[in-house]
């Protein structure tokens, strides 16, 4: 209990753990990710390609299974971007999330939906909507890079961020 300027406050800090089921399609996604493959799920009725993959096509209200999963390109198009430059507590860790960081929404080639992810660029003048981007795998990074890992583990940080492609790389 702390007293400030004649007012009382009670501090409460708690660790509220959960263990969420990620679903069969996500399990398959992460298995394939270890093999460097990015999988979406394709609606068997309307053909819409969902990334991230999931068990339901909301437009047709039909089920998608692991058999409906199709590999997507690791390259795509930048749809939107920002550079997050404000402090907040990250509920994933309970600590402040480091900032600034690049944050993008992009469409991987072959997908009809979009992916929101980190980007390693933090200078907003370097982004151009419509430009080409690529998903970066952690084991391809220089060994001294903070996101480097020697092998793919089958989790979200196997692709730590999206990279802006330079004109000459396209």
């Amino acid at each position, binding site marked *: 209990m702390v007293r400030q300027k004649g007012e009382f406050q*009670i501090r*409460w800090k*708690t660790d*509220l*753990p*959960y*263990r*969420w*089921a*990620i*679903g*069969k399609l*996500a399990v398959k996604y992460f298995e394939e990710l270890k093999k460097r493959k990015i999988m979406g799920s394709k609606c068997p009725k309307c053909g819409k390609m969902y990334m991230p993959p*999931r*068990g*339901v096509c*909301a*437009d047709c*209200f039909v*089920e998608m299974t692991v058999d409906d999963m199709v590999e997507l390109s690791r390259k795509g198009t930048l749809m939107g971007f920002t550079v997050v430059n404000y402090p907040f507590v990250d509920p994933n860790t309970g600590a402040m999330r480091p900032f600034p960081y690049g944050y993008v929404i992009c469409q991987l080639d072959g997908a009809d939906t979009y992916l929101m992810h980190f980007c390693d660029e933090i200078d907003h003048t370097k982004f151009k909507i419509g430009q080409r981007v690529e998903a970066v795998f952690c084991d391809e990074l220089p060994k001294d890079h903070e996101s480097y890992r020697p092998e793919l583990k089958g989790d979200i940080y196997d692709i730590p961020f999206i990279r802006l492609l330079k004109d000459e790389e396209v």
Partner: protein
Amino acid sequence: MKVAIVGVAQTKYESNKIDQTYMELTFEVVKKLHNQLGITNDDVGSVITGSNDFTDGRTIANMAVQDGVGSVRKSESRVSGDGAFAYVYAAMRVLSQEYDTVLVVSHSKCSEGDQCLINNSIFDPFYQRHLGLDQISSAGLMANMYMSKYGITEEQAAKVVVKNRKNAFNNPYAHIQKEITVDDVLKSPMLAYPLKELDLPPYSDGAVAMLLANEETAKKLTDTPVWLRGYANCTDAYYLGNRNMTDLIALELAAKEAYKMAGISDPIKDIDVAEVSENFSAHELMIYEALGFCGKGEGGKFIDSGETQMGGKIPVNPSGGVLSSNVAMANGLIRVAEVAEQLTGKAGKRQIPDAKTGLAYGMNGICSQGNCVLIFGGD
């Protein structure tokens, strides 16, 4: 203007449904309902869901199920709390004459979070939360006060568990399907005196869905509509210390009001089956008293009489109740679904013959704080 339940669907209740996300879990039960009724998502006018952010570990818990309940581009709203209250909001949408059909869905996965911490968060952060109260310790307080005031024995409380577990054996959706004896209950580890492990419910995952319709649409969709006849909602005091812990007075008031609306004068005679949210063994005895099935303090004698068993005058929880399948937040809507199954004669091995009028009781919070009583009738 009337509102009917035209179809219900339930998942199997079990712990650790690890192969399904919330979206997939709700999709399973909604698709099952569509197939059963021969409708598509286009036939659903609007959607009401019932869930709780702390239980799901997600702020705006209904966001996680939009795709699964088919509400993309539609009107959906979410009652935060027990599914019985979600049913009421959905019924209002039909009664307002703005929608012909409304889908109600309630889900949760109790086994994915820490229920004691989640329930501890219900207590106010100034006076009670730091004491570590949760659903088990507060139930122990209530059970102890009730049982010592009225001389209810632990054996009598245990009989509730034995009855409900026996009933669950007849319910293919029930989570715990294992018959037990009074002795098993009494010998199980003590968790919060006088409540032992088997006096308390399991933690279950699952979802339940139902379609409500107005009279005209109901006739097209089913031969056996289940009509809402009575409803009341009544909230008890928040602080346990401000509460009458030995009598569920808010539930009693809700029951009286719902009976009045449904024209029920003698509940034992007029009600054929009751599905109630009993959160611990002795709680069901307290519920008997509040619902007027027996006099004050006579819950123990009433379970002894056997009248609430299958074949008794007023079977309570033919489904096995919460003590067999505890899908917190969906529990109230499961009660409604089970009453609907009874009144349409589709309850299989747990069917009460010729059930015409049924009662469903859903609850919010700790020790019956928020109470929703619903009375249903067949044609």
